[in-house]
């Protein structure tokens, strides 16, 4: 993979952004592997080979989820939007629109840091206590 995972010159990017790029690349690779195994499983008839590939695909599910969780932890706004969409019953698009609107407005109200800021991202704590 190397430097082609970067859209901007790597030496101009902060360390946090480079780490983010690596995990984003890892997420993509895991997603691609899940898709490949899905196709192989669809055409394979050998039971033993199927079992091995199901096991391998399970590994990729795990990798994808760990990569995603890392990226969400480092990107509070993304995490908040994901919280409104993932594991919800009902209309996915509707949940997406609502989650985006609420998360973006909430972040602006809290004074959340812009993407790429090196601050701790504490911002406003209004509503943090009852």
């Amino acid at each position, binding site marked *: 993979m190397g430097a082609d995972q970067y859209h901007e010159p790597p030496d101009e990017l*902060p360390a946090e952004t480079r780490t983010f790029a690596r995990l984003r690349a890892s997420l993509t690779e895991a997603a691609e592997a899940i898709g490949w195994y899905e196709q192989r499983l669809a055409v394979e008839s050998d039971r033993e080979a199927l079992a091995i590939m199901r096991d391998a695909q399970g590994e990729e599910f795990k990798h994808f989820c760990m990569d995603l969780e890392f990226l969400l932890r480092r990107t509070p706004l993304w995490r908040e939007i994901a919280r409104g969409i993932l594991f919800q019953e009902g209309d996915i698009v509707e949940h997406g629109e609502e989650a985006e609107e609420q998360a973006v407005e909430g972040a602006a109200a809290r004074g959340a840091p812009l993407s790429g800021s090196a*601050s701790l991202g504490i911002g*406003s704590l*209004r509503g943090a206590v*009852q």
Partner: protein
Amino acid sequence: MSHLLREHAPITEESWGRIDEEARERLTPALAARKLVDFSGPLGWQHSATNLGRVATVKAPFTGISAEQRRVLPLVEARANFAVTRAELADSDRGAEDIDFADLDRAAHDLAVAENAAVFHGWKAAGIVGIAEAAPHKPIALGNDCERYPRHVAMAIEQLLAAGIDGPYGLALGPKAHELVLESSEHGGVLLLDHLRKILAGPLVWAPGVEGAVVVSLRGGDFLFESGEDISVGYLAHDADAVQLYLEESFSFRVATPEAAFALTP
């Protein structure tokens, strides 16, 4: 590269993550002012002053010219230095879970105390007038009998209402008063903490750096905290034994409605 110079520190990305997380965990409970006042920004390190929307007349040594100069409130840069030993950082990279961040914890507390004290009691040299010193209401003495606190807080809210200041209200409690409240329960088993919250219809906040307590309206628009750079960890220097770092932020604070707060002295 930002002015924080983090890339120059002999600290791995994982250890930077731990330092940032430790700082965040220590700061968040202690940053009382941010739980009660309006926060705007962060507007960036290069943001230098808050617009006050006012002018002062200045002499113009030119024929036919009158002049006024804008008044602004410069942001103050507050910094708390701390050190982490390189041996601890190496252990962190090995996966140790009990890293000694005592000096970082001390710096985080110092910075939170400074921010709270500036907001509630002012910082004259930085041009900041605090909420308690701006409040025009005659203060009530809190005292050591915490069973009387609900009465004091109710009286404070009565005076705020009489001044036309609507709720909900929040209470910043200095550490001593907060400890007394936590330790006590009123007759009938009702927690004093819950009683105070019901009176306020808002939060009660542990506020290191606050002397006594301050009741503030949470209706918004009365107390304005402007963040330039929000709290960040930067790199100062290192030698063979330790890395010198710092916590830093830039901010201004102003009281737009002095009547919207009531001070309870110790």
